[in-house]
């Protein structure tokens, strides 16, 4: 079951719209088996969400994205987790990672305008207790995200028929 689960996850990670029927055919198992595996993976919170990678720039509603390096003083008893939680609960925060190296938290935030981000920074993040400093880097261009290259898939250049 372990290998099969991993293969289901790898396929869904790459294309979450693959139907149970499709998966069953590709992995040569029954549709019921696939349904059960997916249900387990969802219940165990291994599969958290099926999401879509979108190039908003093409929809002429571009989004502003920034990476913020945050240094904090860990809290007694809770370490970094409590402060991370204070930060990740804001809906504009897309990702939060605890980092090794010269800063502590890497916060990726997205807004519709530059103003959204600077508001969040000055009003919310910088004023949090235990946050010692922030450093903000705005994203200028997205080339690749979650394994997806933004310039689009390379076209099939093969001859249509070959031996």
């Amino acid at each position, binding site marked *: 079951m372990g290998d099969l689960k991993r293969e289901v996850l790898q396929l869904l990670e790459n294309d979450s719209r693959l139907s149970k029927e*499709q998966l069953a055919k*590709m992995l040569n198992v029954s549709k019921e088996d696939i349904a059960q595996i997916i249900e387990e993976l969802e219940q165990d919170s291994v599969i958290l969400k099926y999401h879509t990678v979108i190039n908003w720039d093409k929809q002429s509603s571009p989004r502003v994205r920034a990476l913020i390096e945050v240094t904090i003083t860990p809290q007694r008893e809770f370490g970094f987790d409590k402060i991370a939680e204070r930060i990740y609960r804001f809906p504009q925060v897309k990702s939060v990672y605890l980092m090794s190296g010269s800063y502590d938290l890497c916060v990726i935030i997205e807004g519709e305008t530059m103003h959204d981000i600077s508001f969040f920074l000055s009003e919310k993040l910088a004023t949090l207790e235990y946050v010692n400093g922030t450093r903000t880097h705005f994203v200028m261009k997205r080339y690749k995200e979650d394994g997806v290259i933004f310039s689009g898939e390379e076209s099939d250049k093969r001859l249509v028929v*070959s*031996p």
Partner: protein
Amino acid sequence: MTVNPNSFINEKVRKLPPSGIRKFFDLVSQTEGVISLGVGEPDFVTPWHIREACYYSLEKGFTMYTSNYGMPELRKAISNYLKKYQTEYNPEDEILVTVGVSEAVDLALRALISAGDEVLIPDPSFVSYAPGALLADGIPIPLGTFEKDNFKLTGEELRSKITSRSKVLLLTFPNNPTGAIMTKEDLEVIAQVVEENNLVVISDEIYSELTYEGKHFSFAALPGMWERTVILNGFSKAFAMTGWRIGYAAGPREIISAMMKIHQYSIMCAPIMGQKAALEALKNGESEMKKMVQSFNQRRNLMVNGLRELGLSCFEPKGSFYAFPSIKETGLSSEEFAERLLTEEKVAVVPGNAFGESGQGFIRCCYAASVNNINEALERMGRLLKRL
């Protein structure tokens, strides 16, 4: 006096029948919006680390000839790699790097055949062997392989085609177009006949990595067979490197040096850029290659299950990246079926008999295509089948 340039052409070449694939290629090229299951190569682009290694070698100025045998480091890497099939070859003089397995096929045939020798070739199989044998003044003898035997070559079939002129046996498993493989036990039966009749074997194992059940077994690993076998293998299929044109032959020193004699005069050496890339593939390419094989396997299941759901009888291909369903029930010939599928539903497949007479009644469907394209192609094929 009007000159007919045709009269200048060598008779053997003039008589060579045109390739069945070529005819079909022209037809497909004239049709728009085709989903092609007619290709014979991976749908992956060469992994980036391999392409990047080639950039680097160009930056460093590796633009010269190499040894006729190929770069020593590459031959060493190939020698190491071939150990995984329990075969040992000295990188010094038992391995020859060629311009694809295509060149290696030609060299092996030319190095081994004397005029009138018979070359035993499984049928159906890759399109180059019989013409290669003819060009080397040999006589190709087809060995039928059949669905009832899972398209394996049987000892009886081989025995029934042996004559006093039999010289070379070509083995080509995993097979293009059938997807058949031969296990160690299957090959042992063949080895017996080979020994009894003192045949020399050319074993084209280019799809060795694309074996989905069990592990590939190399003919040269059977007792007593190493001395009478040339193994051909390459980078095109396993590492998605068709355009780089790098393959190799491995065998006894005497045979390899005979092949090298021809190679040095006709080719000199395989291009260094391709050799550099091939070296990177062997050094660091295993994990990406495994991922590609897994992905082919998923699509193999999808294709075979899909074809069977359409009601076609489809033998389970255990190697390469082709499914070879029978279309005999439709009453059409392979060409008629492929042509109607193309013109009415815009799906390209290759008629099975383009690979030999025993392929009549079958079509080759390559599953190195995207999941969406496979699904769409199956749906279109279903529509045609309903009308027949």
